[in-house]
């Protein structure tokens, strides 16, 4: 491993060599499969971790809105001739911060505020695309996602977001969860609700936009919501909820990639189906042990 070099290939080749030893299977042999695995393991677990407070705050629609506004970010990037990845992230953060800061300042419920921003953003995206013919092909990769087409540079970018999310979770988790339990109580305990909510929204936007490359705009909410919902079915404490959610995400990422290799199905969608299967099992467990 050549740590001295900052070139993405140099760093990743070391990681790939390690993966060859840990995963000596046929499916993990091609480099694109290793990248797909890395992409999913770097984005799905942090998405699932954020999903726990997200579900507690009933913000599933919010993450969906960020995912869909990413579509506009990509369209803007292509139109302006800059990397769509960057415009997608920037636009996602912008929409997230806007929703989080407007929410609660109007007499409207939060899903209404999200609905307004969400449809405006998507309408803007469609308007931008309609001016340029031939743009749609470019967007397809973002709409459906494809972890098999992730580049080395994107892997490193996902790794950076992974580290950032871990830091944010460390400093933000208690406050965002307490806010989700009872806002007035959290405020009385000194939680600055607005700034915590806006920071959380921005972190969610980062994770959503990072995960879009793997599972696509249409399915990205699944990575946040399904593992967290699974955890909620079976967890009793805050710690177990987070670790079960993260575990379900990591398992689904791995199992989904393997299954898609053997079944020749779209990788992102297969990962989401694996998570859904985990959810089904957890629902059965809950039904079998209602008191558990």
């Amino acid at each position: 491993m050549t740590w001295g070099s900052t070139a993405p290939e140099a760093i990743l080749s070391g990681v790939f060599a390690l993966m060859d030893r840990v995963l000596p299977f046929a499916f993990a042999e091609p480099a694109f499969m290793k990248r797909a695995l890395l992409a999913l393991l770097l984005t799905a677990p942090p998405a699932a971790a954020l999903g726990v407070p997200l579900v507690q705050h009933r913000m599933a629609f919010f993450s969906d809105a960020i995912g869909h506004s990413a579509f506009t970010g990509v369209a803007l990037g292509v139109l302006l001739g800059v990397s769509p990845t960057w415009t997608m992230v920037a636009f996602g953060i912008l929409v997230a911060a806007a929703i989080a800061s407007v929410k609660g300042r109007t007499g409207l419920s939060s899903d209404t505020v999200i609905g307004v921003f969400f449809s405006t953003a998507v309408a803007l995206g469609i308007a931008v695309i309609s001016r340029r013919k031939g743009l749609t092909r470019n967007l397809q990769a973002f709409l459906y996602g494809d972890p098999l087409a992730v580049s080395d540079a994107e892997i490193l970018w996902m790794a950076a977001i992974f580290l950032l999310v871990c830091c944010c979770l460390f400093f933000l988790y208690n406050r965002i969860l307490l806010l989700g339990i009872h806002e007035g109580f959290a405020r009385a305990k000194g939680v600055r609700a607005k700034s915590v909510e806006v920071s959380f929204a921005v972190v969610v936007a980062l994770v959503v936009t990072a995960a879009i490359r793997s599972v696509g705009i249409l399915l990205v909410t699944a990575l946040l919501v399904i593992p967290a919902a699974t955890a909620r079915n079976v967890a009793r404490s805050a710690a177990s909820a987070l670790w079960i959610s993260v575990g379900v995400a990591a398992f689904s990422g791995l199992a989904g990639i393997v299954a898609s290799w053997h079944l020749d199905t779209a990788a992102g969608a297969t990962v989401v189906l694996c998570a859904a299967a985990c959810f089904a099992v957890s629902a059965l467990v809950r039904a079998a042990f209602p008191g558990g």
Partner: protein
Amino acid sequence: MTSCEHLHTLEIRNLTVRRGGVEILSGIDADIRCGEVTAVVGPNGAGKTTLLLAILGQVPYTGEIRFCRAAEHGEGAPRIGYVPQRLDLDPGAPVTVGDFFALSSQRRPVFLGASRGTREATRASLERAGVGHLAATPLGRLSGGELQRVLFALALRDSPDILLLDEPVSGVDVAGEERFCEFLSKVQRDSRFSLLLVSHDLSVVTRHADRVICLNRRLVCSGATTEVLTPENLAAMYGADAHLFRHARADGHGHLHDGEAR
């Protein structure tokens, strides 16, 4: 105890709260005295909870809320404990009572577990509130009375100077209400915080409060419980529904401050 006998711990002067162009509270003057139980009474929509939120600094207001304390009791901002009216908890939330304590006290994220200090403080305050066995119970499984105790234990953990209780006995049955009031008076005797209690239940107020603040968007009256809760004042607050008062007085036994010099 004598040092702060007649010190006003909280002075509220000309407090006005507006929301959406409507005055929810206007020109309130009131004092909350050290070590006493002050009840806030008034009909629905009188601004009782808003008064608590103003003291907590959670709603914008004009006027003054001043905290004073005797020099020997230390300096700095007052520690205000708050027990909200009811936690509208999501019953499926995977959060235990212990998690709830950890969430509001420790820096370490709860998914890495509670620190030893947190665990010990949690156990001690839960035991003090008589609910030591509930630490591992999910919040959604608590009964109304248990939740009340847990919230109260949490508010007491930080040894508050002032404790704000919003409708402490709502959602609790009569026996539970009696137990809670007895427990409250015991703890308050031991710790001598000032207690500000919002209640619509005049029997609780007449039995346990030293002083009463009657609100109906304005200050209707305030003073010692026995002097203030007159049929005339109640009529001014609730309309002509003064029969509430007679009902409330039917069994006036036990006083929160029995045996204390006043």
